[in-house]
C-alpha cells in the first residue's frame, strides 16, 4: 500500500474486502465474549444456589 486512499478503496475491491473483514471481526468478537460471559453466569448461579441454601 502506498496511500491511505489506496488502502480504503482496496484498489477497487473495497466492496468485497471490507465486508469480509467486518464479518470476521464480528465472528471473532462474539467468540471472544460468549465463553467468559457463560462462565461468569454459571459461577454466579452456583454461588446463589449455595448461598441461598445457607440463609434463613
Amino acid at each position, binding site marked *: *500500500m502506498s496511500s491511505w486512499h*489506496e*488502502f480504503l478503496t*482496496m*484498489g*477497487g*475491491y473495497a466492496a*468485497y*474486502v471490507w*465486508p*469480509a*473483514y467486518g*464479518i*470476521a471481526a464480528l*465472528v*471473532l468478537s*462474539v*467468540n*471472544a465474549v460468549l*465463553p*467468559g460471559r*457463560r*462462565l461468569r453466569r*454459571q*459461577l454466579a448461579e*452456583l*454461588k446463589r444456589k*449455595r448461598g441461598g441454601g445457607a440463609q434463613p
Partner: protein
Amino acid sequence: MSKLSWVWFHRLASPPYFYRLAGRLAPWCGWTAAACLAAGLYGGLWYAPADYQQGDGFRIIYIHVPSAWLSMSCYTLVALSAGVGLVWRMKLAHAVAAAAAPIGASFTFLALITGSLWGKPMWGTYWVWDARLTSELILLFLYFGYMALSRSYEDPRSGERAGAVLALVGLVNVPIIHYSVVWWNTLHQGPTVFVGSGSDISAAMLVPLLIMIAGFTLFFAACLLKRIQGEILERERDAGWAREMVERT
C-alpha cells in the same frame, strides 16, 4: 509410555485440574493471539504487495485461509475427542468436543462467507456447487448435526454418545474437503501453501498469512479453553470441588 507421563495424563484428565489449568492458560493464548492478529493485519492489509492478477482483492486470503484451516482442524478435534469419550468413557473428552463444536461452526461459517465475498469479484458469482464449496457446506451441517444430536436426549450421556458416532462418521468429509481441489476440476484455486515443499507465493505475502494462521489458532485455543471451563462446570456442578471453589470466592 513411561510411568511419569501416565501420571501426568491422568492428572490432566481430571476435571478440577484441567479447569484450573485452562483458566491459567486462556489469557496467555488470548494475548499472544491479539499480538499475532495485529501484526498479521498490518502485514496482510498494508505491507504485502497487491497480487498481479487479483489486485487488492486477494487480501481476503488473510482471513479466509485461517478460518478454513480452523474449520477442518477443529472438526478433527471434535471427532477425535468425542471418539475418545465414546471408547474410554472419559468425561473431559466429551467436554472438549462439546466446547469446540460451536467455535468450529463459527469458523466454517466465516470461511464460507469470506470465500463467497472473494468469489464474486474473481469468479463472477457468490456461490457455485463445486466440490470444495459443497464439502465445506456439508462440514457446517455436520457441526450443526453434532451439536443438535448431542443435546437431543433426555440423558446427556446418551446424547454425547450419539453425537460422537455422528462426528466420527463425518470425519471422512475432512480429507474430501482438503483434496477436493486436487481430485475434481473445481472453480476454487488449488493449494497455495505447502508445508515442507515450499510455497508458490512470495514471502511478503506468505509471512503475514502464516502469522494470521498462528493468530487465529491461538485465538481458537483461548476461546476453547474458556468454553471447556464452562462445559466442565456444567457437568460437575454438584461435585465437591466445584462447591468448594464457589465458596472460596
